[in-house]
């Protein structure tokens, strides 16, 4: 049986675009804390927010988020 977890490349993509968490938060229309928790995988965003983040960072949701499989 496998347990899937979601990883993300948000911090990496944001750094490539020279954006701070606050800048990205403003672009997406959420709080800076939301961006921080998504980056730290504390909070998994909705499809709507994931799509908006991907659009603002000029990438796709699949590039931004990925499945990390852990064998249990």
């Amino acid at each position, binding site marked *: 049986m496998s347990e899937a977890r979601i990883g993300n490349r948000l911090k990496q993509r944001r750094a490539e675009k020279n954006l701070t968490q606050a800048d990205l938060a403003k672009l997406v229309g959420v*709080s800076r804390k939301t961006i921080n928790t998504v980056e730290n995988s504390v*909070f998994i965003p909705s499809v709507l*927010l994931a799509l908006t983040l991907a659009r603002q960072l000029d990438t796709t949701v699949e590039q931004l988020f990925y499945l990390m499989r852990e064998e249990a």
Partner: protein
Amino acid sequence: MSDELHQLTEKRFTLRKRFTLLGWIWLTMLSAANALVLYYRPFANLLGIEAFEVHHGVWPEVAILCGALIVLKAVYLRIFRRSEQLTEFASFKEALLQGRVLRMSLATRCIFLLGALALVSVGWFAREPIGTRILALLFLLFAAVELNFIIHPGETLHPDPHDELLLFFRARMLKVGYVTAILALTSLYVASLFASPYVGLLVPIALTISLLVPAFVYRRLDRQADE
């Protein structure tokens, strides 16, 4: 928008107001008026409710005094400070809609809720039913404030209802609060079996715990989100 209004809306609002000299004078007058009313009981004589107050306590005196003072202050503000009041109200409304009116901090809310709990507990030990009922209303008011925080978490008085992080926090808080409330109810049931006379004291304590635990969970999550 006028410059004055713009300046007022620029700053972040808090519900705390610094006590000025006028505020202290107002508080002293209020205390003195309260003491005089309790000593002479003018409203009982005026309204013919002496017998009622003998049996049910002097709370109608305090309630009538508070009502009269509220009306008096409202009339004073309407006549002498109408323009300032309108400007302040407009700026407050705008700040509220923009989510810049801050809530009371957790520490302040804890002080109010635990203070009210302490008063209710003292009233229970003193076996003073009328005073305890009045204090219980105060306690329930603070409990309602805390419940509102659990249902609508966030630092501001009017948090964004579509903020996904706050919805996530709320789900966590409700989960923890639900478990805490069930544990508190179970403890109360056990207490009712073995120490039934103390249930009246334990119910507000259980309610306080059920309300404060989710608030502390929010605090921890919020700090974690800030790191």
